[in-house]
């Protein structure tokens, strides 16, 4: 197990290093500088600004400084917001994003598992068809379309919930639903296939032959075994949620990281774009690592295959 984790961590570090290097090179290649109106500034003033952003050092020194900063969690200084570090800005905005992401992940997976179970238990029944249709629609229709529907009907037409912005829990309901639909549908599909497979296993027949009640079979033998492989799709789901927050925060004007990112893209604030990208990369990679390790712990076959 230790060897498996070690191997994964080394890959993670190589990947992060690669991403950091690419971002640095791109930063140097891209147009845009901290000077908003260069021609109005004197030589000395420009010098001061360049000094502040560390742009006077030779490129290799800048590169080392950049990597050193990254290790300490310093993502650089924004061009637009004077003197504000990118890490600071992100720290300010992580709250709403994390709340949306976690709420959506919990609601999505729980509902998805239930839906998938209903499908599998009443295999080929009406509820199976209905939840299969829900699952196909949920995985196909993009989250921003759902967001538009929710915003127009629930918020504007019926006025049940606030349209946008962020002032408390009720403001998070619509974005959470819009985000949760995709993980829900994916979990439902996955759970359905797994559960049908498990219910056809020999040990289920044994349990039945033993005279166990139907509910006991489903809860004790069925669900527990079907849930294990679900861990594998949690990684891609969480990554999908992060991508989703970029769009959903924009639609519902939630002051999260995603919204900041989109604003920075339109205003060419490269340190924020790169810093956020770096932050996303770290979150993605660490998340996948944790899930891989978790899965290795649960299922011994995975960690054995990692050894060869």
């Amino acid at each position: 197990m230790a060897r498996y984790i070690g191997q994964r961590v080394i890959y993670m570090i190589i990947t992060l290093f690669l991403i950091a290097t690419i971002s640095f090179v791109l930063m140097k290649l891209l147009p845009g500088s901290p000077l908003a109106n260069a021609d109005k500034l004197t030589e000395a003033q420009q010098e001061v600004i360049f000094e502040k952003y560390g742009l006077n050092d030779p490129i290799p020194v800048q590169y080392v400084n950049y990597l050193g900063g990254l290790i300490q969690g310093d993502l650089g200084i924004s061009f637009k917001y004077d003197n504000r570090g990118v890490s600071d800005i992100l720290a300010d905005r992580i709250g709403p994003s994390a709340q949306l992401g976690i709420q959506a992940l919990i609601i999505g997976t729980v509902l998805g598992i239930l839906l998938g179970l209903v499908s599998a238990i009443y295999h080929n029944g009406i509820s199976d068809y209905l939840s299969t249709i829900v699952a196909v629609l949920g995985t196909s229709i993009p989250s921003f379309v759902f967001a538009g529907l929710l915003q127009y009907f629930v918020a504007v037409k019926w006025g049940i919930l606030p349209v946008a912005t962020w002032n408390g829990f009720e403001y998070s309901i619509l974005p959470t639903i819009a985000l949760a639909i995709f993980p829900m549908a994916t979990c439902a599909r996955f759970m359905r296939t797994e559960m049908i497979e498990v219910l056809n296993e020999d040990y289920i027949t044994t349990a039945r032959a033993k005279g166990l009640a139907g509910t006991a079979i489903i809860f004790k033998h069925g669900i527990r075994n079907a849930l294990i492989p679900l861990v594998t799709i949690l990684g891609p789901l969480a990554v999908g949620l992060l991508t989703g927050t970029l769009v959903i925060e924009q639609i519902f004007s939630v002051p999260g990281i995603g919204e900041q990112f989109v604003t920075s893209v339109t205003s060419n604030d490269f340190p924020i774009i790169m810093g956020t990208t770096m932050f996303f990369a770290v979150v993605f990679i660490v998340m996948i690592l944790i899930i891989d390790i978790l899965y290795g712990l649960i299922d011994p076959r995975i960690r054995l295959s990692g050894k060869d």
Partner: protein
Amino acid sequence: MENRKKELDKNLFRPADRTEEQSDVMARKSTTLLQDAVRSLRKNVFFMISLVLLLIIVLMSIFAPVASDYTYKEQDLNRSLMGPRIPVLENISFLGLDGTQTKTFNGNNVQAAEMKAKMQFDNQEDFITFETVNEGDGSRNSAEVKATYDKYAAKGVEDEYFYFGTDRLGRDVWTRVWDGTRVSLLIAVAAALIDLVIGVAYGGIAAYYGGRVDNYMMRFLEVIIGIPNLVVVILMILILDPGIWAIIIALTITGWTSMARIVRGEVLKLKGHEFVLAARTLGAPNRKIIARHLVPNVMGLIIVNTMFSIPSAIFFEAFLSFIGLGLPSPAASLGTLINDGFKTLLTTPTLLVFPAVIISVLMIVFNILGDGLRDAFDPKMRK
């Protein structure tokens, strides 16, 4: 039953020819995997419906912009935000496709509500018809008036038909939607095909040569896979000039990895099979083994994987437009149209509805086609 038994003459029967040589001759030609797949796909109702829908959308996206009287970038502020109006269908009132705009206004009394309606509808009193829903009792916003505004008549363009209406800049949405659909499909299909070529070549080479080549190629692949897709796409879009090609390149830079992995795994598995060994023993050259035994067996997987990568490319393109990294104006894609639609969601939701419906239908259709193909080409997966 009794009658039928009597009718059959004994002379009609003769003993079956059961000699040694003929005992293992097949009565019918065996069906190939492809024939089998086509047969099971034909029986799949959802698959066939999806295929027809996809065909319609593709044909519309090619011919509708050509046949249209307007172009996707032709602006005319005089005719901005017109309602959808379609010939023939305009006579069926509940469809709302007669080009008029209807909205309810509240005010303290009927006059105040009507005033609000006039302000919203360009002060064109002559072309607004009012219908009082609620007289009101003088208290705040108690009166309710339903106003219908015929903008086509007000602007004097009664002989023009904007099937899906016009956007804020007076561009014809019908033309823009189909043009955008074509651009989105083009991006998705191009990205999927490039993924296919790179992925199959990479995976095939790694698996076929095996050993050290395979080892190095896979280590490299693992690092690439570790880089989050979103991160690479954003970085690529930033350095390339915005446009269709920038999006295609950004999508393919990480997109090919899953195809390479799948092809490698499958080829590795096939290489160990007895029929390859048999072919080799019989002296078949490498190129023949690849062409006759490996490629046809991997084909199904490749087709299925490509089918699934198209909808994800469509989604990613829309996503990029949404976060401001999409096609520059005035070019239209489903993503940019939806993004524009959100800006006028509260006043004219139709601008969002049309592209959103098309992107949703496209995604559903591609997913169903992919599912159907997977079931048809991979008998093991059939449930």
